[in-house]
């Protein structure tokens, strides 16, 4: 059974000088319901393009993305929180919930889940970077999403905050169990959070390896097996890099 599937997807971007840059060619990947797949690979290889295709921000030149109709609920967490600065934390979440199904009871529970009940009325500019990203996580999960897309969600945070939020994300995932894609440069983060890790290399991007992460959940950030996996992925990336 598949919740989200890329079927032979081609995507080419046209640079300002008119030259074409093929990013994906015949890309195929199936993701099972409730599965979190991490995509790792060098910068500019097309990882974020996969998320944009899944979110409907971009359309494939050829092939298709199956499983996400126009009414599918997609929660997305970006590298920057992308909150509306003129809305407080609660209203930022409520806006997304209103667009989804209007069940505003989930706003409060989402804020509770990320530990920001006291900051419900705070505006984003008065929150720390970590708190803003918590609001972004709450917004993504408050809409009761069928799919959650994570685009390097913790890369702009200090490591200490990022570690806390990775644990929080694990908890949210076990509570909501959506299907998801995590794009990250951090191979340890991929090992900690994902059920499978897809390693991309080349231009246009090809899947060079898929790794099943068999470690038990909940996982601890310092578990030795995760470090072994992290070294394994790094070795694959280095080999793919040439």
């Amino acid at each position, binding site marked *: 059974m598949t919740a989200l599937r890329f079927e032979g997807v081609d995507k080419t971007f046209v640079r300002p000088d008119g030259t074409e840059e093929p990013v994906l060619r015949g890309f195929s990947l199936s993701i099972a319901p409730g599965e979190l797949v991490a995509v790792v690979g060098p910068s500019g290889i097309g990882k974020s393009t996969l998320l944009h295709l899944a*979110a*409907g*921000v971009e359309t494939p030149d050829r092939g298709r993305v199956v499983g996400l109709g126009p*009414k599918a*609920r*997609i*929660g*997305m967490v*970006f590298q*920057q929180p*992308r909150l*509306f*600065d*003129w*809305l*407080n934390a609660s209203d930022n979440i409520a*806006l*997304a919930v*209103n*667009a*989804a199904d209007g069940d505003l009871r989930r706003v409060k529970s989402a804020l509770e889940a990320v530990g920001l009940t006291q900051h419900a009325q*705070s*505006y*984003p*500019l*008065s*929150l*720390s970077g970590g708190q803003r990203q918590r609001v972004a996580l709450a*917004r993504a999960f408050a*809409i009761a999403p069928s799919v959650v*897309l994570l685009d390097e969600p913790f890369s702009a945070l200090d490591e200490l905050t990022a570690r806390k939020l990775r644990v929080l994300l694990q908890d949210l995932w076990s509570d909501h169990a959506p299907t998801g894609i995590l794009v990250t440069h951090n191979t340890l983060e991929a090992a900690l959070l994902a059920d499978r890790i897809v390693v991309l290399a080349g231009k246009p991007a090809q899947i060079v390896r898929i790794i099943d992460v068999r470690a038990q959940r909940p996982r601890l950030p310092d578990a030795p097996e995760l470090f072994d996996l992290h070294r394994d992925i790094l070795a694959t990336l280095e080999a793919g890099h040439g």
Partner: protein
Amino acid sequence: MSVWTESAAIKAARPAAQRLRPLRALAGRVLPGLLFCALLAGAWQYMAWSWNSPLVPRLDAIGDELARIVASGEAALQIGVTLGRIVAGVLLAFVIAFAIAFASVRNRFARAFFEPALLLGLTIPGLVWALLCVIWFGLSWKTSVVAIGLRVAPALAINIVQGLEAVDPLLIEAAHVFRLKNGQRLRHLWLPAILPFLLAGVRLGFSLAWKVVVLVEVFGLSTGVGYELNSAFISQNVAGVLAWTVAFSVIVAAIEYGAFQAAERRLTRWKRRASV
């Protein structure tokens, strides 16, 4: 003991200092402007005293004239008429400007099509629109409203275009991903994002509209502040000209400080909540 006394004094002083903070902020905003007005009045009085001519009346003569037009109700009536025309004209300008701005941002052809019109509109003096509208519409409310609309719309449209183009594309993408409806996008994304440009546009619109409406009232209407200014000018009543100018300026200042700045503070309060 001395430590306890100092600590209590600090604690007692703190609420008082906090209570005074808004007053200090208000004084900081208002006092410099009042100082300017006082210096201007002093300089005028000195000039009137040294020239001793009816062409430069003293402050008391201007004050008497001001008191007369206020007491008779003329000031309220004529300023109300002029303000009504300004509001209607600026509203018309907003409608035109929004249509042009949205079309220009969404469509490259529309942008190229309207560009010369906007440049032309910015270049044409208000006097030309005032004269043309008096000729076209005569003694009608349309004269001032259309003249203001045509004079103000180009500047307003450029402001709105800049505002629309300044909206963060990452937020637009987030709105798309979270499937925000068109009404939600307008209310929670586009309008708040272009609000600073809109507020600047309203201020600019009112300042331009005031200049145009006075010209229209001088040339072709029998009511309004411009008409009264012209009447005072024809009878060489310099104190009357100044009294009407002062009366209208006070109302404009009240609108600026009481309405525009208050609205701006309220609508952009989220900016002041930044942590320190």
